[in-house]
């Protein structure tokens, strides 16, 4: 009982006409103009709509849980379903339909379904209730067979009623859509039964989809045509007589072109629609007489998308319609294709980079790509016919016959170049598509070409033996066509299974001729003024020849070797012809990679002996003219062809490096030093990254690193000359990168070795250092010790967090002491250590392992003992002036100014390490820096004890304070040398954002309160560093507060020429604010001060980029609201003329734009504005 009333309530809430959304708004149009009431009614509309859906769901649940039978529901609904009030009736039917869609998975017996079908089918007549009827049919017809589905005869009955009663095009968008859905479903899933409706069905469909314009409905409509065509495939079937009409309905949609941009609510994209239309077009061969002429006509349209679509449709239609039907259009399509290629094929890229390894490299163009794939489709399908067309084509023959007249690329006229390129591409595609087409091309065109040039098959033998190619007869066009043909043929070989063909035989007999031809073009163009395309063609040709698979196109091994020899001789001798040299090296690289990949042992052997070994030999040959830098370049490129070659190259490199190193230490040989530096650079910048990417050579890397250590320990001189700085840097870099790419185990090996070297070969007493008090000045660091120490720091910097560092406490002490001597890498190593140390909370108590907290304790509290000559004047918070911790040192006043700057610098790197991992101690460290910055003002920071004790007599060293400002740069900037991903730093996400938000209020307060110009300057400088390295998005949120400070920073930074880089960085932040939407509001408020500031920057003499960016900012400002900037206009226009006369072109260029932009906001104009 309770359920029944509940059901009634649900039903009433749904059917109740007074609250149906559409009804309500429409039935009270008189209220619509009243804003208040409409907003109220909209609210209630939303509300009732939700309620209605909820009632539907509730009823659905009732039925699904068997609390209510469908029959009971129908009985309950009885009155609504048959009411004479159209509104109530339609709601009632809709309710039943909606409920049915919600119980798709509930089994129903066939009788129920049959009677429901009967009901809904009947209701299609009732146009007022038509939505419910269609929806109900749709819900029923979508049922799966396991839960009881509509029988064939019922489906047919639905279809018949649909065709008889529905005027689809007179319905609304949603109703049309469900109509199409229903029809589509019928055709898709009840094809057999519906098929018998024949002409009625076709005619009804035509009528339904005619003049449809909604994209979503069209998606279905096109699909319906597709299904319909599949239903009646018979060429003499019922569809045949309607094909013309059906196509006439479809044709106007092509090409799909949206006149209005798609709004948010339609989700149909142009491409989807176009694809569906394409499958409708290609659905039946019956359309062929109409489709192909239409497509050919549209191909000449000026609309880019129409062209692309036509080509695409042509391709798909040809494959669907079949060769026979397409045959009669082949000629037309061919000539259309040719024209398209002539027009749209761009200039090929004759660059020595040789980006692609196949054929000539053309700029990507969608039309060209489509055209070529259409051609390929045709060649596959109508092979014989198309090849005949190509071979007999007058343009092709023209090109082939006049090849003789093209001697160099430059001598060809623009029109002929275009033809040459297009024909080349066509031949390439044709050759690569199928073996018969390739054979045909070679037999006719290639042989004809050879004949024209005077090599007929008969005299080939003579050439084979003689092998001398008359260089005068080398023709660019000939070689060009050859390359396209060969490239196509090579791809064919790779793709096809069958490995033999006439073309192979022909190529085989001409391989020597080709080799000589390509070879001689290199010789010739090298003699003449070398122009890129000719060289490119020569090198490319040889490369393609060398890259044929041995088993198909057996270019004799000797030819392959000849090619390699030819290339190597160019590498050795022609180094002053840069283009040729680079192209050759790249070609060798490609050949090498190819040979490695296909594992052709014979070729690989030749490659190794002729190229790899030869390149290795180059290293030790001193008497050839090839500059060493080029040798190294060749070495690395050849190495990168494969792991096996790489290992060989690495071995050779290692040998040479160590030979040269010992030479350096033994005889102070400067050239050896240079050689070693170059090799190490190449090792760390090129070879190691490659090895790292391809894996598998870690053993070598470890061995190399250990070997460097042995070498360094044994032979690093006790008083290394200053020229060796470069060498040491290169060694450090190589060491750092090698360690960086090793695993933990390998790193352990290296660090052990390094540690033993550090403890045995230097005068640092590492084992004692921990026990004794830290005494500054204890060590006099000899250059040799410093060298080893630096090398050691580069190991530390690159370690992974898990790697075990021996005697870490001792090292820490050593580092602190050497840090005060001003050795920056030591500070970086310390920073890395602090970044990676495990913290106490996460570590299981292990004896001897130093935790982060202990290490911090050392930094903050362990006293360093100073001897008398480093006597400190005063020390903060410490009773004894000769003993203080590192952090105190930063805040103290010493005789030795470098001591303090070194301490600050060291602390900044430690701070960076902590900042990256997000450790809270960074706060203390930054406070120390800030204390330094404001040390002459009387503001006391509550955060730091003792700061108020400062008395006024103190004279802080401004240099040290500036160093503290720079410390913020160290903290915020991304370091190249350490503490980055490459060297396994622990990096907390968004650390910059966090730091910025914690620092901003402090700086803001201090800057506004600071009363001394110097400390204000320093604060601004420090904050400038922070701002310029913070992600823009955070800055934007605070734009309002930041702009005044930022402008202060900018004007402060213009004073010193050394600040130009930070000035530029900060200006970029400002320009970011100007261009981003978020920052605009703040910008509008401050427009006048921003403009004042920018006007000062437009003639900043020390950096062009600053001037350029300042002017660009002014352009951006000109887009602000007119009222705000109009008063500022004269000011800007007065400042700009001097930029028009700037010394740099780029600045003048921007100035012209800026002037135009600002002048155009004025109402009256004059000649000079």
């Amino acid at each position: 009982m309770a359920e029944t009333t509940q059901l009634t309530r649900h039903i009433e809430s749904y059917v109740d006409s007074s609250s149906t959304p559409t009804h309500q708004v429409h039935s009270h149009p008189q209220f619509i103009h009243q804003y208040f009431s409409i907003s109220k009614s909209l609210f209630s509309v939303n509300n009732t709509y939700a309620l209605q859906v909820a009632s539907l769901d509730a009823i659905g649940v009732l039925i699904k849980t068997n609390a209510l039978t469908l029959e009971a529901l129908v009985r309950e609904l009885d009155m609504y379903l048959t009411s004479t009030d159209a509104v109530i009736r339609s709601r009632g039917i809709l309710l039943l339909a909606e409920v049915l869609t919600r119980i798709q998975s509930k089994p129903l017996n066939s009788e129920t379904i049959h009677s429901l079908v009967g009901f809904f089918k009947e209701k299609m007549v009732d146009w007022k209730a038509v939505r419910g009827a269609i929806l109900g049919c749709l819900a029923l017809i979508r049922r799966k067979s396991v839960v009881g589905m509509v029988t064939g005869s019922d489906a047919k009955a639905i279809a018949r009623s649909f065709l008889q009663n529905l005027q689809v095009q007179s319905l609304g968008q949603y109703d049309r859509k469900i109509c199409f859905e229903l029809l589509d479903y019928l055709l898709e899933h009840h094809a057999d039964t519906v098929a018998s409706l024949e002409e009625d069905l076709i005619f009804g469909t035509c009528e339904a989809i005619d003049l449809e314009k909604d994209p979503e409905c069209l998606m279905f409509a096109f699909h319906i045509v597709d299904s319909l065509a599949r239903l009646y495939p018979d060429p003499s079937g019922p569809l045949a007589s309607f094909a013309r009409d059906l196509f006439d309905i479809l044709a106007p949609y092509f090409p799909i072109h949206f006149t209005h941009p798609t709004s948010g609510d339609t989700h149909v994209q142009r491409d989807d629609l176009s694809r569906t239309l394409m499958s409708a077009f290609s659905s039946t061969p019956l359309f062929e007489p109409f489709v192909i002429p239409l497509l050919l006509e549209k191909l000449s349209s000026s609309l880019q998308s129409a062209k692309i679509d036509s080509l695409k449709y042509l391709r798909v239609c040809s494959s669907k319609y079949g060769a026979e039907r397409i045959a009669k259009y082949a000629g037309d399509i061919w000539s259309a294709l040719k024209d398209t290629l002539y027009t749209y094929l761009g200039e090929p890229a004759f660059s020595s980079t040789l980006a692609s390894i196949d054929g000539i490299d053309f700029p990507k163009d969608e039309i060209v790509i489509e055209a070529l794939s259409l051609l390929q489709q045709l060649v596959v399908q109508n092979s014989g016919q198309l090849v005949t067309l190509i071979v007999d084509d007058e343009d092709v023959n023209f090109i082939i016959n006049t090849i003789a007249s093209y001697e160099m690329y430059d001598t060809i006229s623009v029109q002929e170049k275009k033809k040459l390129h297009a024909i080349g591409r066509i031949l390439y595609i044709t050759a690569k598509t199928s073996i018969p087409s390739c054979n045909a091309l070679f037999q006719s065109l290639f042989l004809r070409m050879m004949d024209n040039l005077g090599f007929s098959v008969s005299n080939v033998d003579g050439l084979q033996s003689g092998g001398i190619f008359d260089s005068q007869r080398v023709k660019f066009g000939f070689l060009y066509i050859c390359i396209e043909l060969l490239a196509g043929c090579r791809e064919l070989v790779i793709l096809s299974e069958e490995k033999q063909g006439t073309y192979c035989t022909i190529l085989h007999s001409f391989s020597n001729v080709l080799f000589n031809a390509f070879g001689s073009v290199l010789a010739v163009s090298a003699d003449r003024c070398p122009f890129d395309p000719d060289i490119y063609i020569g090198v490319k040709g040889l490369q393609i020849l060398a890259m044929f698979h041995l088993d198909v196109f057996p270019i004799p091994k000797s030819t392959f070797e000849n090619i390699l020899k030819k290339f190597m001789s160019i590498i050795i001798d022609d180094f002053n012809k840069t283009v040729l040299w680079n192209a050759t090296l790249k070609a060798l690289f490609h050949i090498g990679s190819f040979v490695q990949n296909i594992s052709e042992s014979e070729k690989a052997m030749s490659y190794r002996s002729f190229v790899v070994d030869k390149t290795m030999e180059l290293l030790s040959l001193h008497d050839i003219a090839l500059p060493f830098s080029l040798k190294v370049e060749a070495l690395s490129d050849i190495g990168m062809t494969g792991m096996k070659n790489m290992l060989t190259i690495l071995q050779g490199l290692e040998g040479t490096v160590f030979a040269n190193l010992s030479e350096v230490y033994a005889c102070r040989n400067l050239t050896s030093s240079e050689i070693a530096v170059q090799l190490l650079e190449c090792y760390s910048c090129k070879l190691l990254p490659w090895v790292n990417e391809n894996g598998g050579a870690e053993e070598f890397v470890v061995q190399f690193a250990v070997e460097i250590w042995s070498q360094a320990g044994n032979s690093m001189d006790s008083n290394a000359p200053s020229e060796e700085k470069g060498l040491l840097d290169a060694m450090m870099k190589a060491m750092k990168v090698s360690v960086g790419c090793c695993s933990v185990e390998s790193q352990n090996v290296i660090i052990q070795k390094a540690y033993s070297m550090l403890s045995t070969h230097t005068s640092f007493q590492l084992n004692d250092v921990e026990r004794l008090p830290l005494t500054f000045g204890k060590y006099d660091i000899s250059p040799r010790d410093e060298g080893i120490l630096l090398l050691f720091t580069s190991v530390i910097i690159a370690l992974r967090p898990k790697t075990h560092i021996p005697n870490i406490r001792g090292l820490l002490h050593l580092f602190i002491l050497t840090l005060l001597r001003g050795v920056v890498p030591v500070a970086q190593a310390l920073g890395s250590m602090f970044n990676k140390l495990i913290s106490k909370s996460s570590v299981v108590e292990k004896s001897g392992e130093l935790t982060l907290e202990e290490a911090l304790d050392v930094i903050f509290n362990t006293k360093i003992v100073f001897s008398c000559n480093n006597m400190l004047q005063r020390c903060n918070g410490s009773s004894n002036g000769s003993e203080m911790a590192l952090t105190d040192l930063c805040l103290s006043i010493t005789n030795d100014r470098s001591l303090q700057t070194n301490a600050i610098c060291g602390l900044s790197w430690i701070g960076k390490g902590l900042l990256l991992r997000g450790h809270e101690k960074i706060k203390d460290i930054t406070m120390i820096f800030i204390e330094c910055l404001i040390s002459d003002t009387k503001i006391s920071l509550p955060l730091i004890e003792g700061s108020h004790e400062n008395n006024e007599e103190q004279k802080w060293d401004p240099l040290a304070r500036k160093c503290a400002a720079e410390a913020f740069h160290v903290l915020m900037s991304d370091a190249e040398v350490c503490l980055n991903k490459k060297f396994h730093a622990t990096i907390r996400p968004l650390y910059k954002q966090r730091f910025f938000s914690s620092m901003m209020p402090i700086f803001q307060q201090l800057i506004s309160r600071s009363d001394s110009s110097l400390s204000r300057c320093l604060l601004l400088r420090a904050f400038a560093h922070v701002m310029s390295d913070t992600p823009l998005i955070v800055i934007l949120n605070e734009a309002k507060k930041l702009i005044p400070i930022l402008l202060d920073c900018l004007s402060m930074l213009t004073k010193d020429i050394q600040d130009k880089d930070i000035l530029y960085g900060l200006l970029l932040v400002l320009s970011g604010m100007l261009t981003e939407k978020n920052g605009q509001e703040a910008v509008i408020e401050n427009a006048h001060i921003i403009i004042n500031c920018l006007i000062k920057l437009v003639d900043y003499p020390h950096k062009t980029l600053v001037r350029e960016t300042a002017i660009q900012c002014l352009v951006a400002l000109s887009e602000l609201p007119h009222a705000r900037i109009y008063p500022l206009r004269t000011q800007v226009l007065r400042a700009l003329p001097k930029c028009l006369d700037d010394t740099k072109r780029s600045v003048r260029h921007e100035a012209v734009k800026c002037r135009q932009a600002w002048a155009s906001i004025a109402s009256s104009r004059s000649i000079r504005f």
Partner: protein
Amino acid sequence: MVTGLINANPIIYEKKQRQQRSTQSLQGDEYTVEPIDHLEVFDILFANFHFCFAFTFIGYRDIKDPEHPYSLEELKVITEEAVEVNDQNSYVRVTFTPTVEHCSMATIIGLCLRVKLLRSLPSRYKVDIRVAPGSHATEAAVNKQLNDKERVAAALENPNLVDMVDECLAPSYE
């Protein structure tokens, strides 16, 4: 004002490949002076503000046909060679070639060129605009009119003319 066509069917020339500047390497040096040269002036006239005369001035008076946005460059009214610059003496001379001998638009084109240059070059420059010898029926008169600063100033007092010039010079960033 002119109505109808003056040259209904102008010859369209292919755009010439720009000469590549070879001074890119000097970019590194902050203080090197890059003098204003003829390429730059040409760029000011075309690359920068590719002022699109469409057919407005050459042919159809009122039709701007977006399908055929021919610029003065494509019509070879001005070529790179026709711009002569002497940075040291602050002197620039532009010679342009009207498409037909009796083109009544020659003065307007000249005026546009002059205004564009006055606005874009430093004020130290003297600008000289000329019709190519033999390319126009009333060559001397046009030259005189274009280089008479009183008459130029007077022309720019005319709001209709100023509007027309501004329309031509409106930037159409490609």
